[in-house]
């Protein structure tokens, strides 16, 4: 049973990790907690669902299109909301409140368009295959999600550390004004970041929609709570931290169920979060004084 629970923990954790990845990126570079990330996550799932079930696009076209669509939604939010607040040099609180508004708008919109029932992708598309190792069942789709979130994390780390783009982004994270003085097109890179983060968020939504019967207008909210917990655990704004924070949260939840009781699951995992904030307010990866992207 323990081996199965470890598999369960990793598969749950990688869902959180994937969600937290885009979430933390926006915070690291734009310095904004974008609470509409849950809404983008949800719209991404609906976009893919619509493309597959209404327009009968094959899977491998629908998913990239839905990713780009979510990216564009994120870009739109940046252009319409975040950019204006940046121009006014608004405090940290304002983008948070404004993006809550955007999230409510998206939820109501989805509810009006698609209804409030939970949906899933047509089951026949995949023959829900499971990998059996002795007594352990590994759902293949979830193995895919885990692999993908780790790959995406590595890709993001590589881009940030090894490319000129990453260098520019890290400079912006350090100080947007100094970066602008150095000739870095700050505003354009803000847009790019919002786009990439939202595309990642949408991807998380699609993948969760693929593995559970979970596409509903309200799917973003609980995930947002877990996502915030994951990025705080890992260190705000740190890409590696988001993934490890997500995995850590998954492990904490599953082990709480295994060794204590499912009644105490949230008490334990959010209690851990509280302890983490007391012990290491900067999270697992956050460097205390400097902001890292």
């Amino acid at each position: 049973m323990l081996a199965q629970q470890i598999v369960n923990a990793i598969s749950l954790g990688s869902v959180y990790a994937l969600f937290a990845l885009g979430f933390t990126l926006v915070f690291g570079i734009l310095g904004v907690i974008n609470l509409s990330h849950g809404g983008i996550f949800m719209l991404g799932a609906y976009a893919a669902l619509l493309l597959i079930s209404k327009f009968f696009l094959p899977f491998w076209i629908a998913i990239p299109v839905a990713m780009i669509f979510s990216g564009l939604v994120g870009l739109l939010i940046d252009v319409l909301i975040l950019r204006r607040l940046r121009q006014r040099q608004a405090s940290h609180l304002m983008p948070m409140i404004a993006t809550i508004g955007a999230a409510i708008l998206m939820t109501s919109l989805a509810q009006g368009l698609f209804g409030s029932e939970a949906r899933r992708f047509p089951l026949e598309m995949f023959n829900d295959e499971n990998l059996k190792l002795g007594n352990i069942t590994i759902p293949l789709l979830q193995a895919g999600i885990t692999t993908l979130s780790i790959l995406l994390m590595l890709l993001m780390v590589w881009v940030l550390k090894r490319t000129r783009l990453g260098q520019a982004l890290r400079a912006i994270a350090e100080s947007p004004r100094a970066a602008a003085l150095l000739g870095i097109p700050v505003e354009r890179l803000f847009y790019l970041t919002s786009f990439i983060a939202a595309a990642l968020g949408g991807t998380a939504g699609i993948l969760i929609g693929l593995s559970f019967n979970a596409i509903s207008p309200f799917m973003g909210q609980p995930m947002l709570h877990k996502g915030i917990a994951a990025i705080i655990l890992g260190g705000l704004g740190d890409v590696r931290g988001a993934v490890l924070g997500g995995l850590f949260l998954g492990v904490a939840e599953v082990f709480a169920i295994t060794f204590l009781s499912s009644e105490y699951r949230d008490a334990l995992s959010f209690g851990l979060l509280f302890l983490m904030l007391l012990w290491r307010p900067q999270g697992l990866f956050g460097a205390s004084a400097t902001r890292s992207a």
Partner: protein
Amino acid sequence: MRLRPLTALLTLLSALIISMASPAGEIRIGLTEALTGPASQYGTPIHNGFILAQEEINAKGGISGNKIVLIEEDERGKKEEAINVYKKLIFQDKVLMIFGPTLSNSMFAAGPVANAAHVVAFGTSNTASGITDIGPYVFRSSPMEADVVPVTLKAAIKHLNIHKVGIIYGNDDAFTKSGYDVFKQALEDQHIPVVDTETYSKGDVDFKAQLTKLKAADPDVIICPCLSEEGSNILLQARALGIKLSFIGGNGFNSPKLVEIAKTAAEGTIVGSPWFDGNPSVQNQHFIAAYRKKFGTDPNQFSAQGYDALFILAEALKKVKLMGNLEQDRQALRDALPDVQIDGATGKFAFRPAPPHNGKPGGYDANQTPFVYIVKNGKFVLLK
């Protein structure tokens, strides 16, 4: 300036007209269900059932010539909204009585408002224990889980040879928690031990950790007083983990969605319900045909209960002489309701007074025998 007396007169007149807004020939009834939000999957069918019944009653001349007018509101499955809507219907729209809200949670919040104002609050989908403890103005036509569950369990035990069970339920929702309490009591009464109890929270989609633990505890059957959305996820993940056991559900499993989403994973699932679509009675077959024709979809238990509820009201109104005095009329209706008996789409229906609670009089519960189903080849069939 010379126009002033005329304007004053007009204002007075229009005020008079507004105060008589309930002209003879209309019986204003409040109907508030969750038409948006997650609970709308229950609220919308209920609402449809009422609309169908209203059409049929009014087409046959209404209640001794008076038409039934439904003042429709959306309470969005939220407690706060249910309270607001109740206040609007009682004090502003001045309705005779109110049907709804959809969820037990909301009735617990809004019911006391109606009870204090001496207006009948009539739930058609509230199955949690304690709803009618609110007071003597609270009625429901939905049998309590406490009535349905023991019957379901007895039938399941007979069918499946059950000696020990596992349970999984949502512990942060009045409906699923109350379902759990009822199952626990029924299991105690029938001396069936529970080998493992697992919980989850609203919004969870991954139940594999809980299910892995349940599997290791090796029960004969898994009891799942869950809503159908979580329920279908639980069923699918249980099958993926190699759990082949039957599931027993509460009222939330009474939804065609369960089979539609979980497909073969739902095979062998057992539920109890006050309505059976295969019930050959004339009323039921007429209801199903009329509903399909009007809404283009199949009715479910919730629409049948909404449909029947308006006929229960119509039956009560036949015995009430409406005097045009709102307070007296509301009281007269309240006094006529408990004796109503009908034979509707859900079968024979009567009320049963709820026992007094803390020395205060209670409301009225449904007195109905449930049907027990099992999912076979993707369809709910009667468990014999």
